């Protein structure tokens, strides 16, 4: 087990006008660990994800990523080119709406292969066979490889987005409400798939969700945000079974268990 985390953030703050989106948020994430960030709409959880992933600059605080070969790098101080390289290789970002993470009019195979080509892959046959392999990993029929995601259902699009992210074997994946736009049965399948993949590939992941059930299934650790502040952290079962903060208690007791 590596004794250092793979991602660390300290003292993150972000305001939009007078509204506080984040205030003094710090966290550490280790290799192979899944952290769920939960909270209601407006709690700042999506802002946190965007700041961690280098997409939105914080007003204060630092985000650092431990690269494979060059040690720790400040995510917001690195060049645009270096950050894009990370996004194409070591990182993945799964959007809530697959349309935001896919190119809807090019084929499924090209959507997956594109990330490989970004890394310099040029051998058409190999790219195609790798694309087919990853479509299978997300339980998609490789026969659909030449179809564009426009013709896919919501659940298939989301699985394609995941395949597109995983083809470069990232170490760290950011997920923004990855299952929330889907039907319940489709959601269960996707959750199971994500759970299997994160464990099998030892992915580190930050998953933003408002759904405590999703958090319990996917994550070992949990962080509860309210008005941009961390009100509670711990193992997922600690936070859900023995919530300490009044807000977490309210959140947990509001869940409907069938």
């Amino acid at each position: 087990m590596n004794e250092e985390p793979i991602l660390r953030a300290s003292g993150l703050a972000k305001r939009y006008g007078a509204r506080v989106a984040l205030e003094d948020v710090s966290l550490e994430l280790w290799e192979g660990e899944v952290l769920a960030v939960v909270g209601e709409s407006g709690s700042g959880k999506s802002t946190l994800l965007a700041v961690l992933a280098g997409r939105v600059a914080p007003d204060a605080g630092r985000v650092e990523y431990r690269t494979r070969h060059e040690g720790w790098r400040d995510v917001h101080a690195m060049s645009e080119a270096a950050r894009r390289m990370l996004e194409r290789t070591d990182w993945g970002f799964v959007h809530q709406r697959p349309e935001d993470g896919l190119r809807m009019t090019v084929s499924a195979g090209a959507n997956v292969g594109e990330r490989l080509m970004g890394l310099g892959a040029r051998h058409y046959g190999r790219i195609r066979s790798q694309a087919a392999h990853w479509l299978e990993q997300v339980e998609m029929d490789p026969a659909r490889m030449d179809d564009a995601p426009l013709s896919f259902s919501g659940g298939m699009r989301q699985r394609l987005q995941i395949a597109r992210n995983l083809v470069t074997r990232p170490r760290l994946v950011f997920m923004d409400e990855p299952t929330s736009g889907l039907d319940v049965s489709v959601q269960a399948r996707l959750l199971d798939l994500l759970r299997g993949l994160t464990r099998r590939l030892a992915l580190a992941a930050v998953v933003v969700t408002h759904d405590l059930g999703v958090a319990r299934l996917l994550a070992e650790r949990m962080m509860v945000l309210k008005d941009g502040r961390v009100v509670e952290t711990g193992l997922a079962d600690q936070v859900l079974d023995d919530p300490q903060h009044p807000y977490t208690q309210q959140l947990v007791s509001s869940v409907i268990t069938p």
Partner: protein
Amino acid sequence: MSEPAVAIRGLAKSFFLHAQGGVELRVLHGVSLDVRAGECVALEGRSGAGKSTLLKCVYGSYRPSGGSIRVLGHEVVGAPARKLLALRREALGYVSQFLRAVPRVPALDVVAEPLLERCGEDAEAARAARRTAERLLLALRVPMRLWGVPPATFSGGEQQRVNIARALASPRPVLLLDEPTASLDAENRATVVALISELRRAGAAILGIFHDAQVRDALATRVFDLERGR
């Protein structure tokens, strides 16, 4: 003598119910208890005495209000999440009355999962893990036609046997059992008792809640009364 596998000192646990205006519910106050390797301690006490709460504190799901819990020398109270996860992975097993079913995962994989997690992408190790899971499901008489089915729709007894098989698939040196035989018939109860006794004789330290007097007498080497504190 060497340090006990589980050493609990002055354990206190209160729940603060904020929605009820900050009512403090004191469940455990000053529990001290040792469990040594090869020992099975049965927790006794009326309903609400805090038996399950004690087990959950040892497992780390509940965060104690005070005291100390050492498992194989490692402090559990206030341990960072990562340390606790590592301790669970290496040393600490917990079997509750209920199976927390994961949607869509078939029974066989539920049982094999703790082993599969250690396999990574090693296909041979994964096959061996599934064979272990099959042996346990056979021993616990879970019908073969159910192995490929997610346990969500199983009967209470079937779910419980899947749960036990999961815990036994990768036995930990410290085992916490919360009513492991609650919904089993006599025949399955006897099998579970035999399997758990075997683990104890092999050196596991077991702390458990057993309502069934026969099961308790068959398993426990010692009884600890939570209300009297000994």
